[in-house]
């Protein structure tokens, strides 16, 4: 299987879907001439031309709405946000227009659109540029929320998202674009709403999505040396959430730690805990613990930033606590 970066896997998905369906087009800031702020759209302008790879002004509210309107009239837009921080300007169109159109119209007007771009913190980008919004979007009925953690999933999930007849919020990892992995050629489609067990284990379940999967796998590997067998479950799609796979894992391991990059209050982990306590209450041997970012805006200083973010030691510590182990 070819080894591709996360960036190139996304590029391949976009390219293949644009070849497959002329209704698919890409729109956003710097997607064309500049080849993408993070180079995800490299070469697409050259292949598909400016009608289908559309550079926009810095007007998120406007072009997100134009995307939704184009979807209402029969197109399948892929709207790129340079980062999800800037999609806050467009959230009205995502929530009030895209998410609700089908329902408000009594089923007449579906909105097949993908809103995509990098989310989460990178390095020292400070408070306005280091945020995780998956919990916000996952709260909204009518939206699907997808967060791939490796190149193969990135390709397969993006293809599914583009083919889906609903608005999909597709959050990529700013820090993952360079990570490499094996990616199947051609028709590789990962269905939305299906979790993936990224590592099997018996002592504890770690539920993690996006960039946090890498940290969870690293923690699991380290803990294996101490005789702890951790299972890592990656939901891949936050909404709809594959509760069955998570619950099956917890029923097997009896312990669970949930890792996310967002803030703790009303985060994704809170939802997952809610599902677990209902579906696996009698199987739990310890309270479920969560590892999240600190409950603060992201500081610029490197040391403070490190304190604020989830990391491998914090995951290990939480696992030790649910196992009632010292150190």
């Amino acid at each position, binding site marked *: 299987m070819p080894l591709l970066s996360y960036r190139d896997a996304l590029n391949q998905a976009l390219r293949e879907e644009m070849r497959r369906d002329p209704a698919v087009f890409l729109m956003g800031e710097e997607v064309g001439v*500049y080849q993408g702020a993070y180079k995800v759209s490299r070469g697409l302008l050259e292949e598909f031309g400016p009608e289908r790879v559309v550079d926009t002004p810095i007007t998120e509210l406007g072009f997100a709405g134009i995307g939704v309107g184009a979807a209402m009239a029969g197109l399948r837009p892929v709207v790129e946000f340079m980062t999800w921080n800037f999609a806050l300007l467009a959230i009205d169109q995502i929530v009030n227009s895209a998410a609700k159109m089908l329902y408000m119209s009594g089923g007449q007007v579906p909105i097949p659109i993908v809103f995509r771009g990098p989310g989460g913190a990178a390095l020292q980008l400070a408070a306005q540029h280091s945020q995780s919004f998956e919990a916000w979007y996952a709260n909204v009925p009518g939206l699907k929320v997808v967060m791939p953690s490796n190149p193969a999933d990135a390709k397969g999930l993006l293809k599914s998202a583009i083919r889906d007849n609903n608005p999909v919020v597709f959050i990529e990892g700013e820090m993952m674009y360079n990570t490499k992995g094996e990616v199947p050629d051609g028709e590789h489609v990962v269905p939305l709403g299906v979790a993936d067990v990224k590592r099997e284990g018996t002592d504890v379940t770690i539920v993690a999505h996006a960039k946090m999967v890498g940290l969870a796998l690293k923690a699991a590997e380290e803990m294996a040396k101490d005789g702890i067998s951790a299972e890592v479950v990656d939901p891949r799609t936050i909404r709809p959430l594959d509760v069955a796979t998570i619950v099956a894992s917890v029923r097997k391991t009896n312990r669970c730690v949930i890792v996310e990059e967002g803030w703790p209050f009303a985060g994704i982990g809170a939802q997952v805990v809610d599902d677990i306590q209902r579906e696996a209450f009698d199987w739990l041997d310890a309270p479920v613990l969560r590892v999240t970012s600190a409950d603060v*805006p992201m500081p*610029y200083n490197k040391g403070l930033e490190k304190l604020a973010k989830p990391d491998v030691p914090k995951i290990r510590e939480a696992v030790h606590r649910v196992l009632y182990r010292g150190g």
Partner: protein
Amino acid sequence: MTPKTGTTTVARPATLPADDPATMRRLMRDMLLIRRFEEKCGESYALGKIGGFCHLYIGQEAVAVGTMAALRPDDLIMTSYRDHGQALARGMTPRAVMAELFGKAAGCSGGKGGSMHLFDASLGFLGGHAIVGGHIPLATGAAFAIKYQGGDAVSVVFFGEAAVNNGAFHESLNMAALWKLPCIYICENNRYGMGTALERASALYDVVQRACSYDMPAETVDGMDVLAVRDAVHRAALRGRERKTPTLLEIRTYRFMGHSMSDPIHGHYRTKDEVEQQKTRDPIHVFAEKLRADGMLDDTAWQAMEAEIADEVGDALHFADEAPDPDASTLTTDVYREP
């Protein structure tokens, strides 16, 4: 006469400070300080001492320096993430700014803000903001507060030409004109928003014409001429102070570096030739030549200025290097004001 919309030439108000040699050399020095400071930022970024996004002001110095020279200490200022030049021109010390870029506790934002979020409320410098256009309503709100409190200060906001396509800009200008708020909108038109030329993002090529929609006074200003900037801002400030009239200034300038430290200086979006061509209008050289011609600057004075600035920037670097990081306990402070 209040200049209305369009490019307007207005006589210099008599209230402007005299163009005496000391004032002129001060403007020169302020611009040169920014240039040398920014060059060191570039080096420090390459050394990993500055992290995150870092947007240099090289090429645009005359805009910040000319603007600040026309303002009063009680005026309020906001700007975008490209904020080092404005901060220094407003009188923030190279130490405080460099320490912030290094993420240190002694930095002007306590090491929490970094390059894009320089603040010094004591100087009326209300930030560096990192969402394009997001601070334009904030500055309009500051103007609202000034008027509400019966003052005659003005609120000044800097933003790029790419921000004027954004709704926040239009909503702000409309309310400022409607409610007569003393706000000066300074569009630093450096011709590009990241890799997108103005003509590829805006249906209207003259930013100044945007003011027509709101019946707001506006001028196009040569941003490579520090005196032209100062005089235009002075006129705008008088309108704001005396008649609570907002102004849009389109100040034409150019960025000599890449959009940020991680972006190319030229490439897909502009040619090397274009950049070199623009450098012939380097605001620092232009002004130095003028001062030389006017007999206000000679080689000795220039060298002395360079040496003094090198010391000042060197001292700032040393200070920032040695300064302690913020204490871990500060991670959770400043989220809420207590009590």
